[in-house]
């Protein structure tokens, strides 16, 4: 058996995949992590306190796991969902009635709820353990932006089933946006940005119009929210998560002493 293993791990094919030796030596253990593009964002070694659940709650890790679940289930849903006012609702019904498994949409929704919960619990844990204190203040702020991105992902995804709940929730939400100071046409300050009666911020070019791509929640809105939900915000979240994880390492490691 050992001879077979020795032969396999000596082939050029094996060496092309794994750029480190096979025997279990400290050097090979280190290289197994460092020479891997996915794994090397993590440290080779962690402190024992880093895996104590009573210290970390593992909520940050759970959030990332749920993000991956969302990405994969979301990708699968995209094969059957068409983002138009005419087809969206029936495609969601079809995902339940006509597509195998039948609960893919529900799994996507449950993971979304859980991700929001785990993000808040993670924030709570970081606060309780004082892991926002210097030098970790920057990473706390990155985390807050990630929280906002998570909530925006929930908001944009909410519209996509195009049912009564979705349409009116987004109507109300974007109507709140039009009351924003300066950038909303019904907000304070918008009337000030005008020259000789010509309003620069009006119903046709304020932030609500940019969000909806139109004057009311219609086809343009569902397409915009779909693109933001599937590509825009996930890309932003992925980039910020890379920064977030990197800063954890740089600032002293997870669950490390202050």
């Amino acid at each position: 058996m050992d001879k077979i293993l020795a032969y396999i791990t000596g082939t050029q094919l094996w060496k092309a995949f794994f750029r480190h030796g096979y025997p279990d030596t400290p050097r090979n253990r280190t290289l197994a992590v460092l020479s891997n593009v996915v794994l090397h964002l993590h440290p080779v070694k962690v402190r024992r306190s880093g895996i104590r659940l009573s210290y970390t709650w593992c909520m940050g890790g759970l959030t990332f796991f749920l993000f991956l679940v969302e990405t994969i289930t979301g990708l699968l849903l995209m094969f059957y969902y068409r983002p138009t006012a005419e087809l969206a609702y029936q495609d969601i019904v079809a995902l339940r009635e006509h597509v195998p498994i039948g609960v893919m949409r529900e799994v996507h929704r449950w993971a979304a709820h859980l991700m929001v919960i785990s993000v808040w619990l993670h924030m709570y844990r970081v606060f309780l353990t004082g892991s926002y204190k210097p030098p970790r203040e920057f990473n706390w702020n990155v985390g807050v932006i990630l929280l906002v991105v998570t909530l925006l992902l929930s908001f944009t995804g909410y519209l996509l089933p195009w049912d009564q709940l979705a349409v009116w929730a987004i109507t109300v939400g974007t109507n709140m946006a039009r009351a924003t100071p300066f950038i909303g046409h019904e907000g304070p300050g918008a009337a000030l940005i005008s020259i000789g009666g010509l309003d620069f911020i009006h119903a046709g070019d304020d932030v609500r119009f940019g969000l909806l791509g139109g004057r009311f929640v219609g086809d343009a809105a569902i397409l915009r929210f779909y693109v933001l939900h599937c590509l825009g915000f996930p890309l932003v979240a992925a980039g910020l998560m890379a920064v977030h994880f990197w800063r954890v390492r740089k600032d002293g490691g997870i669950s490390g002493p202050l």
Partner: protein
Amino acid sequence: MAKTTETVDKGAEARNAPGADAPVPVLERAPLRGEISRRGFFGVLGAAWATFTAAVVGGTLTMGRFMFPNVLYEPPQEFKAGFPDEFVVDNVDTRYKASHGVWIIRESTGFYVLSTVCTHLGCTPNWLASDEKFKCPCHGSGFVKTGINVEGPAPRPLERYKVTFAEDGQLLIDKNTKFQEEKGQWTMEGAYLPYNG
């Protein structure tokens, strides 16, 4: 005495030599293509940074402008609502509430058209004939028959749409033009259509 107090200034000769405090020495050969002098470097660097900044800012603004479409694929906002005598006097007509989002109210002296968009956060109120008011199911905003807000969180009255007569005598409702009471626009032309038939 003069000799012992005389200090030796070793650098005087070099400093006072002719041309020693002249500016940057002049090249004695033709400059190479793309060569920048030391003095000119900061000018070029500044120009390069300014160009780069302008390009990035310009690109970002262009991307932002891209997000605001010039043409909207929305249903037509102008429609004919029928002949004036089809409407009962002192009645709130709901026949176009679902399809076009308007209530048509005929008084003894004429017509006005109310928008079905609640001025609080955009839900659709319902006309309660027994209570003689519009009541919004979302947050309880209440409006009287004229559209004035009387209860709940609505901050201002319902909006009116422009109503005129089409060439064939039917009511022509134009949702592109709206009149807001709180701006004093209900007295403007088009907010009320006089009709005594």
